[in-house]
């Protein structure tokens, strides 16, 4: 089975970590993978994208237009940049965070409404799995790392569930994070319990 995942968001959200954990999980299971992050510059808050290609032995780093089985977006406006990539019938995981550029915050530039973005995802023929950032759980009174929660949702609700068991991913999380293992695992596990009703 092949699976191509396209990630979008802004720098500082930790979206690349999701891709790295999945790439490591794939490798630990003998599934060929190519992970291609585009970090841009050193600054935070810029556009970040990444592409994970699982399952093919020989594969180019870029997913073709309309070729992504799954899109993972952690920012409302940046989701739109994945529209040319998502497959008809693909899955679109969207965490509804808004990182407004300064011009938007000052009311000098437009920013798309969530409803508009959802409509565009629908028009592209994708299945939306929406995550309301307000629903991110707390761990010891602090909101958990959104990226690990999203990772949990992915492994639980998207086509990735046919490829990975939660335990495969947990092993990588344990090995990867020397600090904050517990809170990261907690976030991941909460994501695993995110229910389809909420996702509707």
């Amino acid at each position, binding site marked *: 089975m092949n699976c191509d995942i396209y990630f979008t968001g*802004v720098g500082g959200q930790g979206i690349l970590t999701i891709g*790295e954990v999945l*790439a*490591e999980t794939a*490798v630990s299971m003998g599934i*060929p*993978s*190519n*992970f*291609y*992050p*585009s*970090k*841009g*510059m*050193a*600054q*935070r*808050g*810029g*556009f970040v994208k990444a592409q994970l290609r699982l399952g*093919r032995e*020989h*594969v*180019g*780093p*870029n997913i*073709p*237009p*309309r*070729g992504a089985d799954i899109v993972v977006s952690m920012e409302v*406006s*940046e989701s*739109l*940049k*994945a*529209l*040319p*990539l*998502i497959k008809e019938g693909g899955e679109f995981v969207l965490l509804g965070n808004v990182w*407004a*550029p*300064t*011009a*938007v*915050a*000052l009311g000098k*530039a*437009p*920013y*798309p409404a969530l409803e*508009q*973005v959802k409509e*565009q995802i629908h*028009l*592209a023929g994708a299945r939306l799995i929406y995550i309301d950032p307000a629903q991110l759980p707390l761990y010891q009174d602090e909101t958990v790392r959104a990226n690990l929660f999203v990772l949990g949702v992915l492994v639980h609700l998207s086509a990735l569930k046919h490829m990975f068991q939660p335990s495969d991913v947990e092993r990588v999380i344990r090995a990867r994070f020397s600090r904050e293992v517990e809170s990261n695992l907690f976030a991941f596990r909460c994501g695993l319990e995110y229910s389809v009703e909420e996702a509707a």
Partner: protein
Amino acid sequence: MKKLITGNEAVAYGALRAGVKVACGYPGTPSTGCLASLLLMDLKDTYVEWSVNEKVAVEIAAGVAWAGHRALCTMKMSGVNVAYDSLISVAYSGCDGGMVIYVADDPGANAGMCEQDTRGFAIMSDMPMLEPKSVAEAYWLTQFAFELSEQIKGPVFLRSVTAIADSQAEVEIEEPAPVSQKPPLLVRDIARYTKAGSVIAMTQHRQLIERLELAEKIIAQAGINQLRLAKEAGLGIIACGVAAAYLEEGFEIAQAYGFRPETASILEIKASHPFPSKEVSQLLDRCPTVLVLEELEAYIEKSVYVMAQKLGYRGRIVGKLDGTLSRIGEYGVKQVVQGISAALKLDLPETLFNAGQEGLKLAAARPITVCAGCPHRGTYMAINQAIKRLKLKKNEVMVTGDIGCTILGMNPPFDTVWNEISMGASVSLAQGYVHAGVQTPVIATIGDSTFFHGGIPGLINAVQHQVNMTLIIMDNRWTAMTGMQVNPGTPCYDGLKGYQQVDIASIVPALGVNHFVIVDPFKLEETSTAIQNALVMPGVKVILARQECAIQAQRRGEKEGVIKITPENCNKCKLCIIVTGCPALSLGSDAIQIDPELCYGCGMCVQTCNKEALHKELAA
């Protein structure tokens, strides 16, 4: 051992497997990760350094190779422009130890520079060039590059592109080879190592061409370029470098529209220079139509036309020159399918690769701006304030820009910087504006690493010719934009060792600059007054705005201060956001809000607020 590594790391591991003795280079996206990974390894027998610029790096590598040892030299494509003067000369002389120039091109301009195709330099310098199509290939081709270099006795290019340099994939890595400890060669041979005299130079030119011919034979013998001829006289496909990685997938798609992959003959090019004439002629012999897939320039394709003419080929060549494919941007599955479709006249639905364009237009523009707490913010604000106080308008005062985070002053809210050419160019470009007769003050801005790299000659020129201009060196102590490398001016912070710092503050006066001031860009009044004073003085004035990159300081756990908000005083005028554009600031329901994680406590917002709503307390 199997390991998940990037393409850049694959080159590093490949070089270690080849027993590389010296690795040097200058940072540049997307090549940086190669040398950066070697530096992290703390190697015992391999010397690794970030050099001051690419030309210096190539010259160091040449010294190593002339002394009979193996050297790796890394850079981005722009670096080859800087290094080329030396590189062509070294190519003429040849070398004894293996010398590999690793260059990473950036089709698609992900890092925002020219989409330069460095294969052109291989052609110009008659140097062989190897081009991996994947991370795994980068590993073994690096090793082959060293072998090839020693066999032909000349330097060899290894070229990758962003998509490979930054990709992570699993590679089987073997133990590094022991580094040779043989005594260095000291060969005095002026016929080989100088160019003085036409006989010497022309003999070297002849030998250079002979080396390239030898390279073609060695590459063919090693079977580097892979030719798979089909039984049928079907479509011939030539795919160069990363383009070959998309064939399989493209075939699957094209199959649905009538293409039969088993009828296609394929030449995968992993050594793009010298031109693989033997393999191409076999392909032309078999195939009535040939498709050439290569990113950027039509170098291979043009040579295919020449070969076709020589052989009296009567078939059709599909690629860029017939208008099917573009010279711009990355190639992928889409170009494979479009090429096949044009070659075989398949009927592709228009929407096959085209969707979502309407939605894209709705996306918010996200201009990059400097980080929260960036010292450059203070400098831009001070320049703007100085211009205003001189009763000038921003569009009357030329501020030339340079490479690095310093260029971000081009964007709102500052709109300070006007232009950018290449490393160091801001200093000389400014002089051109002065000579052209600009009467208002002319300012040049430059980062510390860029000043060392290429800014110093321009400054000497300005001093010699007594040009009326102000140079502002924005010294954040690091080569920041490329991900924090040390440069000669970087102080030996905790843990940094093995070099001596070279202080810009002692270089500038030594160059004959009479008016030289050091300021702290976090002090707005001090900095803008210094700039204002300089702008009205004649001659060359240099201001060194010195304050460490906020990202680096915070990595060591340091903060400049803590900002306290007095909500009663805040009338939500948003002035602080408008002037600083700091990403840590946002508008709350009753007052401005500061994200404590992002905020570095630089105090620039405090200095813009005129309602006493913000106060800076020194960090504990």
